[in-house]
């Protein structure tokens, strides 16, 4: 979708504020929210593409002014509600309860089988490569144009390369296609390429991008011949 999350090249966001040192988790609750990601995905509440799509639906002004794990909570509540895990009224009731009793923690419980699953999952991950018997339409060295169309569903076709011509530098094979996966249409494997753009073609004479090229990974349905 053509949302606020599609930030590449946008102006007005100020300097990159980068403290020399910051804790891995800014607050204790972020530890829980991190772990809710695999726990809720394993419970079938979302896949990674749906999870990203959920964050893209945060109201624009809020997206820019909220914390990272707040984005995560937003998507988890969105999908968790659709999956029947969360009831919004009950969630709000409990939120008010914990707000009134900040010293009280969430109830403790052990789930050793999830710990075991995480011990397997963290070092192996979730591969997005899917073997599919589809011939690629493009080869390394081909010039391609990114489709300029607007988008109303989840896509990784970033706005700043739409309509522009680049060169394929890597052909990776077939992968889960996020546009389909986020819409609940299955893996729909498609060829994935790395495409290189001259910064001057994207931005013109931009001093901060002098002598610069950009690489971005794009799925075949995003591309046409120039």
């Amino acid at each position: 979708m053509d949302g606020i999350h599609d930030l590449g090249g946008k102006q007005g966001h100020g300097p990159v504020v980068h403290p020399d040192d910051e804790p891995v988790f800014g607050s204790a609750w972020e530890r829980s929210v991190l772990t809710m990601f695999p726990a809720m995905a394993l419970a079938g509440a979302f896949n990674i593409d749906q999870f990203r799509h959920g964050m893209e639906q945060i109201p624009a002004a809020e997206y820019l002014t909220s914390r990272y794990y707040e984005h995560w909570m937003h998507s988890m509540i969105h999908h968790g509600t659709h999956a029947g895990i969360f009831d919004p009224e009950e969630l709000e009731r409990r939120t008010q309860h914990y707000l009134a009793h900040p010293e009280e923690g969430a109830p403790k419980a052990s789930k050793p089988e999830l710990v075991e699953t995480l011990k397997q999952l963290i070092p192996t991950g979730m591969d997005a490569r899917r073997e599919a018997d589809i011939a690629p339409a493009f080869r390394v060295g081909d010039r391609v144009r990114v489709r300029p169309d607007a988008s109303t569903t989840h896509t990784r076709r970033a706005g700043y390369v739409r309509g522009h011509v680049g060169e394929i530098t890597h052909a990776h094979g077939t992968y889960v296609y996020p546009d389909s996966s986020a819409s609940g249409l299955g893996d729909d494997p498609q060829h994935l390429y790395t495409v290189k753009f001259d910064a001057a073609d994207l931005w013109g004479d931009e001093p901060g991008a002098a002598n610069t090229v950009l690489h971005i990974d794009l799925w075949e349905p995003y591309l046409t011949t120039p």
Partner: protein
Amino acid sequence: MTSTQQKIQPVEGLAKHSDEELAARAKAMESILVEKGIIGTDAIDYMSSVYENEVGPQLGAQVVAKAWTDPEFKARLLADATEACKELGFSGMQGEEMTALENTPDVHHLVVCTLCSCYPWPVLGLPPNWYKYPAYRARAVRDPRGVMKEFGLDLPESVEVRVWDSSAELRYFVLPMRPEGTEGWTEEQLAGLVTRDSMIGVGDVRHPEG
């Protein structure tokens, strides 16, 4: 408001929800997930401890230091970073397929994710807040040289900048150049010079004193 909180707000002064409100919301979610048997406190402790104590940029620093001292490993790393990192035991979630990008005197690489915050967790751990917030994601592709200057890296225009926008499930990290004056250093000593920012591409490695 604590100083930590001020630092991690994407736009200072504009954050709508206080840390107390966010903590209450997270506890409410956690309490429901616990009741439904979806999460456990032990799982939260386990996963957060992995990324607080085990998986972080110190692992990527070991990869870089080994590449600096072992030409055969470096060749394997540049050919297939996923497999090369596995040799050291580093692999997994959010780094299922990784590519190492070699800086040279003529080419400098920079990694970003403009659409969300994709980052090579197995070698760098969880991303810093600035990597996830709007300013970096907006500017890294359009003003990479300006961003690098803010991190103290002023590259001559003769050096080509190559930006990598991690828009798929492929993850990128930078193999920075070995600093001069480190001949004969051990891998462990060299790893101490490798910064997180140098593996993202925004910053330099540490240089030996004198």
